[in-house]
């Protein structure tokens, strides 16, 4: 199953995604939750906490800044830019985070 959740800001995309991911995991599915939002908050809704959510974001940012090397494949990417969330969900932040250019 491959599901993408979209919608207006504040309409509940992140919350819905997290509940769907954890519910599927509780039913025995192996679930990877990908945060593709440039404002990545999925970790908060999955329950990994503030600190870990910000850690994943800075991991993702350091990739742009050359502090991290690109993962060669999906498994690596999820391993390196991911974190274990409750119910066995694996969360990874894969969003494009733009550092705005001045001007």
């Amino acid at each position, binding site marked *: 199953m491959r599901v993408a959740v979209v919608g207006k*800001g504040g309409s509940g995309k992140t919350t819905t995604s997290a509940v769907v991911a954890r519910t599927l995991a509780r039913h025995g599915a192996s679930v990877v939750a990908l945060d593709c939002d440039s404002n990545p908050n999925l970790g908060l809704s999955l329950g990994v906490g503030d600190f870990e959510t910000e850690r994943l974001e800075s991991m993702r940012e350091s990739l742009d800044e050359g502090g991290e090397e690109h993962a060669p494949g999906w498994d690596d990417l999820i391993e390196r830019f991911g974190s274990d969330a409750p119910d066995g969900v694996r969360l990874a932040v894969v969003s494009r985070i733009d550092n705005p250019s001045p001007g």
Partner: protein
Amino acid sequence: MRLAFVGKGGVGKSAIAGTFCRVLARQGHPVLAIDSDPLPGLAYSLGLAISDAPLPDEAVEERAEGEDGPRYRLRTGLTAGDAVDRYAVTAPDGVRFLQFGKHRSQTGRGLFRSQFAFRQITRELPEDRWNIIGDLPGGTRQPFTGWGNFARTILIVVEPTAKSLLTARRLSRLALDEEHPRRVLAVANKVREDGDVEMVADRTGLEVIGIVPWDEALAEAEQKMAAPIDMAPDSPAVKAVESLVEQLSEERIA
């Protein structure tokens, strides 16, 4: 006053920004409200039934050969003030309204062209005359990619939820990180209980300049696509925005 509202999607930027513009205009100040959010919102909270107020193609032309500056600009002879007079939609209380980036009316090249003209307007509109209030896109990706730069004061609208607080921290980092000198302040919205405002201050590290209580009237206005200031002029949230206007006017910081 040159002010931009930013924040996580759904925190209430448009409702507060629209009400803010109307209050300021009622005090006799000329106000240009600009919406750079591709979704409607500001228009409704200003009390306009429309959501499209683009600059027409005819307002923009390509820079002449040998002329310095960006590739497109307002057409020769048309000043920023003229463009607002001519093309901005007039909302209740005399607020003028321009919207950038509504894809229904403008796509591709037209949108690209008008982007230059919009920026030119925010840059060149005489400061001693016009107040510019911007409702910027939600989230963290777009607000400061050129659009936020007209603002001297950035108001980050924050509701007391973990996601909104985290978003506010990111926004404040982005806003303060740039070379543009500006002040970044928080407006706490949907405040329900003791401790909410303190939490916003603590977790964002920002000064909280406005406190807007949780108010069903705002949700109802949004549902009806009406301006909060028309539908519920005496509601606690509208009163709180009035205080915010007063606060910023007094401080003369914006």
